């Protein structure tokens, strides 16, 4: 059933109101398989949500691992300089780290 305009005091003397009244009679029949398409999108949205949630939960670990990698890389540079002293540049940041690291 088309939805009817509920305005009881509709003033059909006005052309604009008449246009509204006629337009409000329109009907719509969804295409075949509408439910399946919606449920499929919900399923896909759910999967994206799960992946998003997993990434969010892993974020602290990712940050922690990144910090560890940066620290390790700094020390790695210093160790290399200690192994090859001839390549040492006394003013480089790596060597300053190496001096403090002992």
């Amino acid at each position, binding site marked *: 059933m*088309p939805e009817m305009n509920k305005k009881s005091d509709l003033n059909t003397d006005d052309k604009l109101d008449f*246009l509204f009244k*006629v337009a409000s009679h329109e009907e719509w029949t*969804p295409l075949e398989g509408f439910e399946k398409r919606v449920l499929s999108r919900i399923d896909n949205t759910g999967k994206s949500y799960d992946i998003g949630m997993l990434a969010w939960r892993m974020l602290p670990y990712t940050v922690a691992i990144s910090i560890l990698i940066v620290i390790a890389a700094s020390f790695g540079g210093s160790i290399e300089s200690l192994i090859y002293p001839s390549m040492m540049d006394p003013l480089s940041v790596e060597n300053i780290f190496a001096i403090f690291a002992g």
Partner: protein
Amino acid sequence: MADHPEIASIVAKVIEGDADAFGMIIASYKDMVGLMVGRYTRIEADREDLAQEVFIRAYSAIGKYRGSGSFEGWLRKIAVHTCLDWLRKKKVRKAIPLSELSDDEVGWIETNLISATDMELEDKIDSSKALEILQKAMEKLSPEDHLVIVLQELEGKSINEISEITGWNKTNVKVRAHRARERLRGILGIKDKGADKCQK
């Protein structure tokens, strides 16, 4: 339209993760949602997308449905806000160019609305053509004005109901509705009733 008689138990099943139960909700309300969203777009693909989006949002938010009011009312509210968001995005993207009314459409208005006082004509006029012309004109309005015209004029909602659905205060709704009507009248080239009478 009344709620599905077993809506409370169906909603409970959906919350527990039963997707088939949500399929029952879609089947019961798809016509209503499709009709509502069809008042905001004249492109069939957009209409289907919008209708799907309403149900997806309803599914995500179903845990918030308290069961105190009608489910249909709750779903309608989601549909209205989905349509408003869509209109705002469309306005920003300007993906669809605002089209002018063609000579044929202006002629249609002149021919079909010339005897607007004749109630017998109402059933003879092509309602989809009327809605198409109206939507074309409404595209020129702001998303908020478009929304208020649909709610008030096509869905017959009162100022109070529109205020409740949109969250805007009643004065704001009244002023917006009046201005939107006047703008639409200008776009369609329909003079107000007073002017029509003066011409006669």
